[in-house]
C-alpha cells in the first residue's frame, strides 16, 4: 500500500492523514466546494474536487470517489466514519475497482449494518439481545399492524432505523398515542440519512448504561477484543462524552463482555476494526445492541489506555498482516481516558447548530491532552455536515486525575466567532453524578430537562467586571475605525489619532 485515498473530511480525515504520514503512505484527499481550504486538503499530497457541498452530491457519491481514486493512482481507500463508512455498496465498488478497502468485507458490513440481521447474528453466537421486533417494518406496513407489534414489544420502546447509527432515525415512545408520529419522523430521518426508511422496535431498558467493546480482526481468523468504552453520557441518543475504562465494569465483567463481543464478530467472520455496543443494566446484565463496522469517533480514548494506533492497525490488517498483540494487555487498561465531543452548537439555546466563521481559536495542550480537530481560525464551520469541530481527549493515571485534567483543558479551550459546547462540558464535568460515575443513557437528557434552559456559561461578578472593562477598552480603541459616530463624537481628536495608531499596530 503506497497511496491511500481518504473518502472523508474533517478531523477524521486529518487523523488518517497522520497515520499515513507515519507509515510512509501518501495520503490523497477529496473535497466538496465548501471544503476547498479545509485542513485535510492542505495536509494531503493530492486533493480532488468531488462536487457541491451537499453530502449527497460529493462525499456520498461512490462514482466520484472511485474516479478520484483511479485518477490519483491510489491503491487503497479509507472511509473514515459516517458518510459511506458502513455502506456495503461502497466497499464492493472499491474492491471491484481493484483497490483495497480499509475496513471489513461488504458482506460483514451488510449483515451488521442491518440491525435486525445483526441481532440474529448475536442470538446465533449465544449473546443476549435487547427484547424487540425481529423483523423490519418497511413503509407499507399499515398503522394498525405497527400498533399491535409495538404493544407486543411493550412500552416504553424505541423506534430505530434498520440502517441506523449515531442516534439518527431513532425516537423514544412512552405513550402509544405518539407511536404513529414517531414512526413517521424516524422513517423520514432514516430515509434522508441512510437512504433506507425501514425501522424496527426495541424495548427501552430502565436506566441502562451504554458500554461498548472495540475489536480488531485480521484476515487469518484472529479476533481480539479491547478494553471497553463507557458511552452513557448522551444527548438525544448522541454520545457526547466517552471514557475508558468504564467506572462500573469489573475485570470479571470486562472478560465476559469481551468474549461475548468476540463471539459475535467471529459469527460473521469480521475483519478490521469494529465495535460491539452493549446495554448494561443495573444488575450487571448486558445485552447486544448493535455493531459498528468501522472506526468509531471515540477510538482515541482506547488508543490512550492501550498505547495502540488503531488506524495504523486498520491499515496493517487491510494489507493482510497478522495481529501479533498480547490479548491480556488489550484488556488491561493503563490509566484512564476521557473524550469530550466539542460541537458547533449553542448549549444555551437548546444546542441549536451554530455554524459560521471561527475568528479566534486557542486549543489546549500540555500533559495528557490530545485535540483531534480540523478547526482553524479564519475557517467556516459549514452547515452541510455534522457539527463536530474537535474531539478533546484527556489521559491521566486514574479517573479523578483525568477529570481534573479535562477540566483544566476545557479552561484553556477558547473558540470565538461561533458558539460551542465547551461551556457545557465545563459544567458537566463538575456535576457530582459525573464525578461519582453515577449515570445512565438518559441521565443527561433528564438533567438538561430539569435545568430548563439555565445557561451553562455561568458568569460571576468578577468575570462580568472584567468583560465590562475589556468591552470598554475595545470600544474606546476601535471607535473611529468602526465609524461609530456616537461614541467617538465626544472624544478629543488626540484620542482618535491614538486609537487609529493603536489599532494599526494591533492589526
Amino acid at each position, binding site marked *: 500500500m503506497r497511496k491511500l485515498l481518504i473518502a472523508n473530511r474533517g478531523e477524521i480525515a486529518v487523523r488518517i492523514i497522520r497515520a499515513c504520514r507515519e507509515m510512509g503512505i501518501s495520503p490523497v484527499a477529496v473535497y466538496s466546494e465548501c471544503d476547498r481550504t479545509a485542513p485535510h486538503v492542505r495536509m494531503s499530497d493530492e486533493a480532488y474536487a468531488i462536487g457541491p457541498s451537499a453530502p449527497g452530491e460529493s462525499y456520498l457519491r461512490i462514482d466520484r470517489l472511485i474516479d478520484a481514486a483511479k485518477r490519483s493512482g491510489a491503491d487503497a481507500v479509507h472511509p473514515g466514519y459516517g458518510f459511506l463508512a458502513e455502506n456495503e455498496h461502497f466497499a464492493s465498488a472499491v474492491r471491484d475497482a481493484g483497490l483495497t478497502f480499509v475496513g471489513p468485507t461488504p458482506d460483514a458490513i451488510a449483515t451488521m449494518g442491518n440491525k435486525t440481521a445483526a441481532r440474529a447474528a448475536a442470538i446465533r453466537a449465544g449473546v443476549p439481545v435487547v427484547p424487540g421486533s425481529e423483523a423490519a417494518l418497511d413503509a407499507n406496513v399499515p398503522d394498525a399492524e405497527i400498533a399491535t407489534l409495538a404493544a407486543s414489544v411493550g412500552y416504553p420502546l424505541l423506534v430505530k432505523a434498520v440502517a441506523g447509527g449515531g442516534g439518527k432515525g431513532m425516537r423514544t415512545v412512552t405513550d402509544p398515542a405518539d407511536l404513529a408520529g414517531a414512526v413517521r*419522523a424516524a422513517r423520514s430521518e432514516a430515509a434522508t440519512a441512510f437512504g433506507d426508511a425501514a425501522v424496527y422496535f426495541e424495548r427501552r431498558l430502565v436506566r441502562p448504561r451504554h458500554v461498548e467493546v472495540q475489536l480488531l480482526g485480521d484476515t487469518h481468523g484472529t479476533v481480539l477484543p479491547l478494553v471497553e468504552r463507557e458511552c452513557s453520557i448522551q444527548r438525544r441518543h448522541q454520545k457526547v462524552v466517552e471514557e475508558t475504562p468504564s467506572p462500573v465494569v469489573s475485570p470479571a465483567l470486562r472478560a465476559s463482555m469481551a468474549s461475548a463481543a468476540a463471539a459475535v464478530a467471529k459469527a460473521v467472520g469480521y475483519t478490521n476494526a469494529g465495535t460491539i455496543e452493549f446495554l448494561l443494566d443495573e444488575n450487571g446484565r448486558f445485552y447486544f445492541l448493535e455493531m459498528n463496522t468501522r472506526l468509531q469517533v471515540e477510538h482515541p480514548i482506547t488508543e490512550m489506555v492501550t498505547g495502540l494506533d488503531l488506524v495504523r492497525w486498520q491499515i496493517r490488517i487491510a494489507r493482510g498482516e497478522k495481529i501479533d498483540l498480547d490479548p491480556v494487555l488489550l484488556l488491561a487498561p493503563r490509566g484512564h481516558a476521557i473524550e469530550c465531543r466539542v460541537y458547533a452548537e449553542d448549549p444555551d439555546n437548546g444546542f441549536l447548530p451554530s*455554524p459560521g466563521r471561527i475568528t479566534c481559536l*486557542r486549543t489546549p495542550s500540555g500533559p495528557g491532552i490530545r485535540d483531534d480537530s480540523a478547526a482553524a481560525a479564519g475557517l467556516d464551520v459549514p452547515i452541510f455536515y455534522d457539527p463536530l469541530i474537535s474531539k478533546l481527549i484527556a489521559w491521566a493515571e486514574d479517573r479523578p486525575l483525568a477529570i481534573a485534567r479535562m477540566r483544566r483543558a476545557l479552561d484553556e479551550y477558547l473558540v470565538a466567532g461561533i458558539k460551542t459546547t465547551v461551556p457545557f462540558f465545563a459544567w458537566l464535568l463538575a456535576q457530582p453524578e459525573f464525578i461519582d460515575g453515577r449515570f445512565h443513557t438518559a441521565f443527561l437528557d433528564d438533567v438538561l430537562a430539569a435545568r430548563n434552559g439555565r445557561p451553562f*456559561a455561568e458568569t460571576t461578578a468578577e468575570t462580568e467586571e472584567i*468583560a465590562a472593562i475589556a468591552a470598554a477598552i475595545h470600544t474606546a480603541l476601535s471607535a473611529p475605525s468602526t465609524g461609530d459616530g456616537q461614541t467617538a463624537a465626544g472624544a478629543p481628536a488626540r484620542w482618535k489619532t491614538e486609537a487609529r495608531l493603536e489599532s494599526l499596530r*494591533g492589526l
Partner: protein
Amino acid sequence: MHYEIEIAGRLRQVAVTRTGDGFAVAVDGRLRQVNATRIDAQRWSLVVSAESKSDMPARVSYDVVTTPGPVGGALTVHVGSIPISVVVNGRRRWRRRDEGAGSGPQRVAAPMPGKVVRVLVAPGETVRARQPLVVVEAMKMENELRAGRAGTVSEVHVREGVSVDAGALLIVIQ
C-alpha cells in the same frame, strides 16, 4: 469616555481614561488600573490592579478575547474560555425590542441557516404554546421551531424545501 454596558441584563456605568501605560477604568465607581496589551486583532492581555488590596479582583492577569457581534455595540467577550455577551450603549443605539414580549405578534425566525423540511401550520390556524410550527434541517439534524405562546397564524413566509438564512422570518402569530 463614558459607556453604558449591559451584561446579563444589568447595566453598568463604565468610564475609561488614558493613563501613562494603560487605562484607568471605573466600573460603577470602582476604579481599576488596567494595562491592556493587544496580542492580535481580537486578543488582549489585561493586567489589572486596584487602589486597595481588599478591593482586588480574584486575579491580576486575564486573557480575554473580544469578538464584535452582528450589530453595532454587541460584543462577545471571552474571559478564560467562557463567552460573555456584552452590549455597549445599547439604549442609545436601538430601542429594546424585547420589551412587552408577552403581547403583540410573535415573529418566528430561523435561528440558524438551513433547509425547511416541514411546515406544520397554515395561515388562520390556531396554535397552542410549544406547538411545533416549522422543522428546519441544519447540520444533518432536524430542529423543531415551536410557538412561544398560543395564538393564530397570520403569516407563513416559507414552504418546504427552501433554504433559509439565520434570522429569516418564517412565521408570524397574532
